[in-house]
């Protein structure tokens, strides 16, 4: 389902804060949908969740768990 603007902002903040999304050096702050999907897939894979690239309940719950403040330098390359 489509995310509301508040939740979308929170998800993007999380993915940015922990290194799953990289802010582009130039241009607008808007992320392409495929970039967000890819970041979600990476987060889900690193978290041992079903990999859908979609914001589901399990992913939402995982993002609410208490955690360390350091980034997760996971990407598809490191996960391989």
């Amino acid at each position, binding site marked *: 389902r489509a995310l509301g603007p508040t939740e979308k902002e929170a998800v993007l903040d999380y993915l940015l804060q922990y290194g799953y999304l990289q802010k582009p050096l130039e241009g607008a702050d808007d992320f392409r949908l495929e970039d967000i999907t890819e970041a979600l897939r990476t987060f889900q894979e690193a*978290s*041992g969740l079903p990999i859908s690239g979609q914001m589901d309940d399990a992913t939402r719950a*995982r993002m609410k*768990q*208490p*955690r*360390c*403040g*350091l980034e997760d330098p*996971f990407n598809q390359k490191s996960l391989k």
Partner: protein
Amino acid sequence: YLLLGHWRKKNLTFRIFNVPSTLSLPRVRAALHQAFKYWSSVAPLTFREVKAGWADIRLSFHGRQSLYCSNTFDGPGKVLAHADIPELGSIHFDKDELWTEGTYQGVNLRIIAAHEVGHALGLGHSRYTQALMAPVYAGYQPFFKLHPDDVAGIQALYGKRSPETRDEEEETEMLTVSPVTAKPGPMPNPCSGEVDAMVLGPRGKTYAFKGDYVWTVTDSGPGPLFQISALWEGLPGNLDAAVYSPRTRRTHFFKGNKVWRYVDFKMSPGFPMKFNRVEPNLDAALYWPVNQKVFLFKGSGYWQWDELARTDLSRYPKPIKELFTGVPDRPSAAMSWQDGQVYFFKGKEYWRLNQQLRVAKGYPRNTTHWMHCGSQTPDTNSSTGDVTPSTTDTVLGTTPSTMGSTLDIPSATD
């Protein structure tokens, strides 16, 4: 696991700057000490707490506002803590969390601290969700232990901890005791009377101990006397025995039921300790390079101890005379010297043993001979009655240092 860097040294200090309101200082200290111990039990790392001054790893609690950290926290929940990678050393905890120990409520300080120490040591986040270094807090675990991925990560950075060393330290069952401070006793005369202990110590120098003082033995006579604690900080006088092991570069000093361990002139963390696997009030100790073992002597018996392997000391003591032929019971000091011979000291006499561990012909001799006091005090050989100036002695003539100056003994901070 992911690696973010590493420390170039393996003996690190840490300091606790403040504590949260939910836990007492003793409980915080216990939790943080245990957090470090998880890592030092699997990697060759040591951690020593300091109460003041600079520390390699600095732990503190701060909240939404912090004067000294630009990465502020976010109130209860969400981010719990963060740390710097080597060799920066900061570890910060969110003071707004409910920090707890021994309960499923709140956030377990010990486990979170162990995770952050992992970062401070150079580990990044693990993708194994059950690993300590996973980014998300998995909750309180009463029987927590490191995940194999955590162990593999830290050992990739610092290597494996020797299991023999761990066994040895665990089996000693020793208790930390407070250092002894006392006014120094009277200065002994190196050229008369017996010594408490003797070692061929660090840097190939021969040290003699008596009362609160130590001096080096050189070709030109005894070196100047120093208070023992001026060289080995924290070490008391009136020692029972001392032994230096070139195998481990450790010097062990024994007094009563306590042992002090030094590497060069620096006391090892956790010492002095009580020992209970050999009898207290030892007479002497020596390192025998032939089998790389330490021999401890008391009365007419000895114990053979391997510093790096599990030793079944229940088979000891064994009679001294079975291994060291012609040696007196209750020696006051013993040592292996650089000439490959073993020496025993008792009263005003000393004995030299050959490679077969038999007392050599012409011994015992007067210790003034050993101390090279010949130019100051004529030495009457107790066996032959000969007057033997020490400078003519063929064995001791190879004493490494010919300097009788204060340069013979390094300073306490050397």
